[in-house]
């Protein structure tokens, strides 16, 4: 039950652009066990979506992976050819994107797209349209969409944003087996719909016993749904812990800053932001990428990327402050 489903090791991803190379991912480590709900938190531009795209191997042509492995149940998927990949994906991978409008092809009906997704998912053996239709209708129904029959013949443009996102979830329902990746699933939705969509996602994952990777920049969201959280900054995983633990005892200065920058309903006072901006990926800092913005930085920080340090209780931090011998520098 607790086998490791996904293991990303030391992943580097570079983008070739005019005038240089964007070194976006800088040695990312990320694991997900089967049945687990993991969160991936970080600000816009830190590389969350890139990591997922690398995992799905849908990176654009100008991306290259100079180093690192992505293992799915022990198999390194970077070495698979496209047919083996399609097979693997069909076996039970699903992804829900941030913007439901762009996630659905506007010139095909919901039904056409749904049928294809069903047809190519492994474990589906039906031959006739009617079989696909049944699966499709059931999925649409489970996603709490009104009038599933008509929905099949509709085009995405005829639906509202919330409905489109639920259609995307229906795709996942129709096929999800092992892993659901939800990339900012509620960001572009009205607050009233957000709750519904979240609940759908959680129900779906729990019912199928699937793993969930929830990507978000909202800490509150991560707290609600996930069991374990990774915090990402500028292409590195800088902290990881069980969700409750992370929120109780954030260690990395960046995580602390993030939590402090959430305005509180009670207690008054303004929230503090984190000064500075994410680094230029063309010329990233040689050491810790957060160093330029960090109040606690010292000499080691700019020399090399800090290693991942295990604090215990499944809590890991990539920060020199937590190395043996640096207790003095921390003000816990």
């Amino acid at each position, binding site marked *: 039950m607790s086998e490791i489903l996904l293991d990303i090791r030391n992943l580097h991803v570079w983008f070739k652009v*005019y*005038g240089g190379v964007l070194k976006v991912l800088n040695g990312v480590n990320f694991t997900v066990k089967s049945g687990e709900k993991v969160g991936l938190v970080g600000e816009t*531009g830190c590389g969350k979506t890139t990591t997922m795209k690398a995992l799905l191997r849908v990176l654009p042509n100008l991306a290259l992976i100079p180093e690192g492995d992505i293992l799915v149940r022990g198999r390194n998927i970077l070495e698979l050819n496209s047919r083996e990949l399609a097979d693997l994906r069909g076996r039970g991978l699903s992804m829900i994107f941030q913007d439901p409008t762009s996630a659905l092809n506007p010139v095909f009906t919901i039904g056409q797209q749904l049928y294809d997704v069903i047809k190519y998912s492994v474990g589906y053996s039906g031959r006739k349209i009617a079989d696909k239709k049944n699966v499709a209708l059931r999925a649409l129904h489970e996603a709490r969409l009104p009038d599933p029959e008509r929905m099949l013949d509709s085009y995405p443009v005829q639906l509202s944003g919330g409905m489109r996102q639920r259609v995307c979830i229906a795709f996942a329902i129709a096929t999800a087996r092992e892993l659901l990746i939800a990339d900012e699933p509620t960001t572009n939705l009205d607050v009233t719909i957000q709750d519904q969509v979240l609940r759908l996602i959680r129900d779906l994952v729990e019912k199928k016993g699937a793993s969930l990777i929830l990507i978000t920049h909202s800490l509150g969201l991560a707290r609600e749904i996930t069991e374990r959280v990774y915090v990402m900054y500028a292409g590195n995983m800088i902290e990881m812990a069980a969700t409750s633990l992370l929120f109780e005892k954030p260690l990395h200065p960046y995580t602390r800053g993030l939590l402090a920058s959430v305005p509180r309903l009670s207690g008054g006072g303004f929230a503090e932001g984190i000064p500075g*901006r*994410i680094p*230029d*990926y*063309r010329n990233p800092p040689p050491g810790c990428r957060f160093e330029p913005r960090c109040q606690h930085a010292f000499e080691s920080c700019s020399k090399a990327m800090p290693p991942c340090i295990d604090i215990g209780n499944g809590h890991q931090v990539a920060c020199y402050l937590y190395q043996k011998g640096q207790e003095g520098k921390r003000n816990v």
Partner: protein
Amino acid sequence: MMTEKMFTPDAIEDPWVRTLDSLKKTWYKFSRNWLSVLGLVMVFTIIFLAVFAPYVTPYPQHAGKFVDFKNKNQPPSWQHLMGTDTIGRDILSRIIFSFRNALLMAIVVLSVSVSLGTLTGLTAGYYSGTRVDIVIMRVTDVFISIPPIILALSIAAVLKPTLMNAMIAVTISWWPWYTRMTYSLASSIKNEYYVQAAELTGASKIYILFSEILPNCSSSLFTKMALDVGWVTLVGAALSFVGLGEQPPKPALGTMIAEGVERMPGQWWIALFPALAIMFLVLGFNLFGDGIRDALSPEEA
């Protein structure tokens, strides 16, 4: 998101430094593609040749009333790099002089059609959904439904064949395309927040049109204008091919090709070189226009 130093005090500095800086950046973006630089060189060459034609051509008098039957139909040689035509005129000189008229036509046509087109397009786009919009765009649609070359030909054929009438014909066929482009840009820009903010603070419509909306259309406009120089020249050549537009003995690229075609394949140079000259001009402005598009496009995150 990347390298802008937005919060440093330098940015609020001397406006001259800022302009110079943005010029440098624009050049950097332009010059990244060597083809654009090539286009720039070609465009400069053409402009230079056109402006300084009388001083640069080997036989400037051949561009006017000139006859020299002794030297007619000479193939390319060192004296006449592109040969001579049926009445002995040097083809190279005539081509250089024809660039003058070509550029003149492009300038006149584009000035009028861009002004007219953007004005109508801005108005229609800003008032999109109202009667103003509908009237303007229906009229524009009628013109757009006919390919510009056909429209220009028809109009020019009805009028007397002069350069001025050719320019009028092409202008009439051209302005609707600017209307259409500005219209779609303006109608999406008008919904941006900064426009709504300006409206709220009571800015006059004219101010909004020209200071808020128009600048944001400028990159598309400039790109299209640069590319259009080539296309206008093309349509102009088509007109003169038929005999509309600049009349002989004044040199025009289209007329030269028409004369040359009669003499194919024996005196192939009479038709080929003007054809290549048009290709050169259109290619140059196209590469240049592509470079402008790159230079004016915003940085991607």
